[in-house]
């Protein structure tokens, strides 16, 4: 029986408070679902003993009354989060054997509120990828398959394990991180909800850094209400992250009235890309109609620098990555290469990093090194940062004109097959983030919501982009869209 693992956070919370079930029971159900799901490659480190202890403690708190919303909720944690005493290796060989001596702020907030950790989830190495195919653990696999086709599909990336685990009901929800779309694209590929908060809403402390000015963690959940609940538990000022905002955390769940009458929804014309599949275009039109029927005003808007977001991102993100990943040198933690007689410290660095980093990570570190190197810093890095300022100004103008939220496709296609992009050049894989990356560059909140299915039965999602710090409003628009779309399809179990 794996029914309890299918619960939402809200459903489990309410049932546990009424005494209808317990965290111990839900956790046991999730653990057995995980044990039978090796074929999905979602969980890469299992922590059943921690889970059982945390569940028992949560049940005591729930019985005592006044337990927080997340108390007793079993979660999967992306491998990018440092969890004390538990392997945390960012799906990289270079962090093999690394067991942090500390706990990330977000996981310590979640566990402090009584949430339960089932284990660590697969991802692209250092969160660099859009298909979960760069992981040292091997691929995570999408629980969905095309109708009448047995080919395994990608769950997207980089939070591919999180997406797969939530969609397959191995856990109630999962943490993800999003630097260019790594929460929203996988959420769309597996038919779940994924939220990237405003930059600074959640602490980055204890999360392995990729591109610090873009990275933000967020919830990956079965519905919008759960995203609101979990975001509340993850948010808040943290003195250990100097970019964490010192702002009060509103009750996001209370914002979910479903009433969006009079709200203005922007439809950016630049997101209508050449060669966009007809199914995506139709999905976008359907979503627009749903919001209009719910009483929102629809406005065509322009975000003129959209086209330059991906190239700017592929300067800024590798530049920051090359700096952040300089710490992996074989000295303080993780892997160190075996050295030959006479090898000095430079050989140690070079061999360790060649063995420890996979090809995509090496490529990005070197591109970052190049764009930051003497003579190219102005031409590439500073120019990209100027373009980034213009991209943010595009959004500032639209919001100043009264737009409350922006509706766009979440991805340019449904989930593609694992291995299908192997021979493509890196740029083609990067195009997966075309609709999501602007949001990271501008520091805005964005959410992917499942809306429908393509002709082959695969889930498709739309993205809503909100004003900075107004996740409550954004979640409410997403909630309305979710109610109208009524997406309830689930993958057929094959694993």
């Amino acid at each position: 029986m794996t029914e309890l693992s299918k619960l939402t956070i809200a459903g489990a919370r309410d049932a546990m408070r009424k005494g209808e079930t317990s965290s111990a029971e839900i956790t046991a159900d999730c653990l057995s679902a995980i044990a039978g799901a090796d074929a999905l490659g979602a969980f890469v480190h299992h922590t059943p003993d921690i889970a059982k202890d945390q569940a028992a403690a949560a049940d005591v708190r729930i019985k005592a009354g006044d337990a927080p919303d997340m108390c007793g909720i079993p979660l999967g944690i992306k491998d990018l989060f440092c969890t004390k005493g538990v392997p945390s290796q960012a799906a990289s060989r270079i962090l093999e054997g690394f067991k942090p001596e500390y706990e990330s702020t977000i996981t310590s907030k979640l566990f402090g509120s009584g949430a339960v950790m089932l284990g660590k989830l697969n991802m692209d190495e250092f969160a660099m990828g859009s298909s979960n195919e760069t992981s040292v653990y091997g691929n995570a696999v999408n629980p969905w398959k095309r109708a009448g086709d047995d080919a395994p599909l990608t769950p997207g990336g980089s939070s591919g394990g999180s997406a797969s685990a939530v969609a397959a009901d191995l856990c109630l929800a999962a943490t993800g991180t999003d630097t260019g779309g790594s929460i929203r694209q996988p959420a769309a590929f597996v038919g779940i909800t994924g939220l990237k908060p405003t930059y600074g809403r959640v602490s980055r402390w204890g999360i392995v850094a990729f591109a610090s000015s873009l990275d933000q963690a967020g919830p990956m959940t079965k519905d919008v209400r759960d995203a609101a609940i979990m975001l509340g538990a993850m948010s808040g000022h943290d003195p250990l992250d100097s970019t964490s905002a010192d702002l009060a955390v509103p009750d996001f769940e209370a914002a979910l009235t479903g009433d969006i009458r009079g709200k203005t929804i922007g439809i950016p014309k630049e997101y209508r890309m050449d060669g966009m599949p007809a199914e995506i275009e139709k999905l976008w039109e359907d979503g627009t109609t749903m919001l209009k029927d719910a009483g929102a005003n629809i406005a065509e808007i322009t975000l003129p620098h959209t086209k330059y977001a991906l190239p700017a991102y592929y300067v800024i993100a590798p530049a920051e990555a090359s700096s952040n990943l300089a710490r992996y040198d074989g000295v303080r933690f993780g892997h160190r290469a075996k050295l030959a007689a006479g090898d000095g410290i430079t050989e140690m660095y070079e061999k360790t990093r060649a063995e420890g980093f996979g090809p995509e990570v090496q490529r990005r570190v070197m591109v970052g090194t190049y764009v930051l190197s003497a003579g190219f810093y102005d031409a590439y890095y500073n120019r990209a940062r100027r373009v980034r300022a213009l991209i943010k100004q595009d959004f500032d103008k639209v919001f100043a004109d009264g737009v409350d939220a922006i509706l766009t496709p979440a991805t340019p296609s449904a989930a593609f097959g694992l291995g299908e992009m192997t021979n493509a050049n890196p740029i083609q894989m990067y195009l997966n983030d075309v609709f999501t990356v602007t949001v990271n560059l501008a520091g805005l909140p964005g959410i992917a919501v499942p809306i429908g299915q393509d002709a082959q039965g695969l889930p498709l999602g739309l993205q809503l982009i909100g004003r900075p710090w107004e996740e409550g409003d954004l979640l409410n628009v997403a909630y309305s869209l979710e109610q109208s779309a009524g997406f309830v399809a689930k993958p057929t179990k094959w694993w």
Partner: protein
Amino acid sequence: MSIDIETARRVAKLARIKVEDDALPALASEFSAILGFIEQLNEVDVEGVEPMTSVTPQRLMRRADVVTDGNQQEAVLKNAPDSREGFFAVPKVVE
């Protein structure tokens, strides 16, 4: 912009990643493809635009300049591939 093999070799060296000679041509061509994609940024008029440092117009928080942490030598060294007598150990640096 096309990246030649010598530039690829230099970048790998700067990044402290060992790349074998026979892998350099493929690497150079990947760099060229990525940089070609990035070249689009030259179409944008950025005259008078300040490079963005932070998306939120906030001053970074400052804290009191006092010791807040310490005495954690064992925890700090716990994950080291090689440590001796309370220090990180590395190959000989100075002859």
